[in-house]
């Protein structure tokens, strides 16, 4: 009885300490709720959303991009309410892969998906998602294990008899509450996973057929339709906290493919001084406004190598939160470069958002390369190969020195210099 009384006073005092801390808010572990309604009571519920975890640096809620290596480079994951911009590689071979990883992660963790594309039907995109690893194979093995366990439970342990007293471990991996899964690119996602998931598709040729009465605005019609579609989904399904009766909060994962390409009615890719100069940037601003006030995360792929006006690329980068650029070696002179012979391309982390914080942790590794193996998309640190030649041949050293200049000048998003120094 006395123990219970002291326990209760203990909890009350810790409760008051917590209350004092939240009043002074000295602690930096602020769990960020949806930006529209950032109350403390709402924050405690958010941690229980599957597939998310709070960041250790500033308490932001993070979701996985589908690639654990990329999550690590982005500081733990993609923050909820932000935009991940993928600058497409030249022939658009690897950026759809990152796009699909993001969507597949959403299906596995049970998030709602919104897929928008002007080129492919979203249903087809979902069919081509990679299959998650470990879940299906383990399931069959676990069923067999459970059957075997039942028959062996009566066998007493003779030597390690202390372990008999421990509770039996759950052999089945708890898949959907984990953060970051691995996928097998050579296999397709099982049909039942797609059918069990909730997704909305926006296929531009279907939606644009209806004429709409809108005041003339500098946004192109397709962008307006897409914004209205996204806003409808967010509002109707309560991702912006407008429907407080919903018990289980969930994340909306938005994926927009090939934004800024001519298929979206935008002409920034073929002329330098175009009429709709501000269409894409205005769209990105409105999208940012929608995301900041809802529980959603967005991935966009933009063919920046096609945009003629460099100023627009700079503005697009400033309006996005996380920017990752892909540079593939196909068709460039780097394909035959001995430095890059093991890899398929370079990946540049151009920008990481600085949310709720003055600083952000920048990884020291600036030279990253990716490789698409048969089953996996890996991101590795790029380093010079060892010079294993017996004789010091001048020509090979010259090649390597030239390739060493191609290595990123050690610049990151904090500072980019005019020229780099060779040491």
């Amino acid at each position: 009885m006395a123990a219970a009384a002291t326990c209760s006073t203990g909890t009350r005092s810790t409760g008051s300490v917590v209350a004092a801390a939240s009043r002074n808010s000295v602690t930096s572990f602020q769990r960020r709720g949806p930006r529209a309604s950032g109350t403390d009571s709402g924050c405690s519920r958010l941690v229980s959303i599957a597939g998310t975890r709070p960041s250790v640096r500033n308490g932001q809620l993070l979701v996985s991009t589908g690639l654990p290596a990329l999550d690590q480079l982005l500081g733990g994951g993609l923050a909820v309410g932000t935009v991940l911009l993928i600058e497409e590689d030249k022939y658009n071979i690897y950026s759809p892969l990152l796009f699909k990883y993001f969507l597949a992660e959403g299906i596995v963790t049970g998030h709602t998906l919104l897929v928008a594309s002007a080129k492919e039907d979203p249903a087809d995109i979902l069919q081509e998602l990679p299959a998650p690893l470990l879940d299906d194979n383990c399931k069959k093995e676990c069923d067999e294990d459970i059957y075997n366990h039942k028959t062996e439970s009566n066998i007493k342990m003779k030597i390690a008899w202390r372990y008999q007293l421990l509770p039996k471990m759950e052999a089945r991996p708890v898949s959907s509450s984990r953060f970051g899964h691995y996928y097998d690119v050579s296999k397709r996602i099982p049909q039942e996973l797609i059918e069990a998931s909730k997704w909305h598709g926006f296929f531009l040729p279907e939606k644009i057929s209806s004429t709409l009465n809108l005041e003339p605005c500098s946004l192109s019609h397709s962008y307006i339709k897409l914004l209205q579609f996204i806003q409808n989904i967010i509002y109707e399904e309560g991702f912006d906290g407008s429907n407080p009766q919903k018990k289980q909060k969930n994340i909306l994962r938005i994926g927009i493919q090939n934004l800024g390409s001519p298929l979206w009615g935008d002409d920034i890719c073929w002329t330098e001084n175009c009429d709709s100069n501000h269409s894409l940037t205005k769209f990105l601003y409105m999208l940012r406004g929608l995301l900041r006030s809802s529980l959603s995360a967005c991935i966009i792929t933009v063919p920046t190598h096609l945009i003629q006006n460099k100023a627009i690329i700079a503005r697009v980068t400033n309006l996005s939160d996380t920017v990752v650029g892909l540079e593939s070696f196909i068709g460039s002179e780097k394909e035959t470069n001995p430095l890059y012979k093991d890899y398929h391309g370079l990946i540049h982390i151009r920008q990481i958002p600085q949310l709720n914080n003055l600083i952000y942790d920048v990884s020291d590794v600036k030279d990253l390369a990716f490789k698409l193996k048969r089953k996996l998309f890996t991101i590795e640190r790029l380093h010079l190969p060892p010079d294993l030649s017996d004789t010091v041949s001048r020509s090979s050293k010259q090649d390597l020195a030239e390739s060493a200049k191609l290595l990123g000048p050690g610049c990151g998003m904090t500072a980019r210099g005019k020229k780099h120094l060779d040491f």
Partner: protein
Amino acid sequence: MFPELNNLLNTTPDQTEQGKLTLLCDAKTDGSFLVHHFLSFYLKANCKVCFVALIQSFSHYNIVGQKLGVSLTTARECGQLVFLEGLKSAVDVFFRPQEEPHPLQFLREANSGNLQPLYEFVQEALKPMDSGEAAWRCPVLLVDDLSVLLSLGVGAVAVLDFIHYCRATVCREWKGNVVALVHDSGDAEDEENDILLNGLGHQSHLILRAEGLATGFCKDVHGQLRILWRRPSEPTAQRDRSLTYQYKIQDKNVSFFAKGMSPAVL
């Protein structure tokens, strides 16, 4: 508010200069720490602040402000801070059109809009109270940031006009201050941005320019800050004073040191 930056600028919250236009610009790096500094500085100096935050949400500034020792929620509640949250208002004005003019009305217009509704919002927010008893020291307008207005379709001349009107009202008439952040696009050849930056550079009394290091990324030195004091009203006065420091951003503070004197090197 960073105490070291106050020392460099020779100001304290107790004695702030009045009637000044401060230009913050960043080139190849992120200069938002300067915005956080000035926001917390003017709130601590007991000034009435109108913050036009176009690029981030309220909770972002609030959380960083708490690290720097000011609470934006209390300031907003007691009327010291008027906060225009650009992202939220943009969604409102775009999807739910209202009849009365909204400060971000230009988002619904096709051609390069004018910022008059925004100016009227600022005017309304910082207007000195007629009751006679001045509760706050001086009005301050803080804009983060002006380059976003260019991305939203407003012309550079319209933005310059807006700042001119704000300066005439806030700085001249009401003896307040205006602080604005503009991104320098560098070699991205953004002509509109260059027009805006040069135009504001000629009008401002103090220019704080955060740049990246010329040698590239460094873990211990995050960038370089150039401070330039100007006297735009006196043409051929003494030469403008300029100082350069390097800085490192920490969790709750930014430390400044002379070039090459980073504690990591010494």
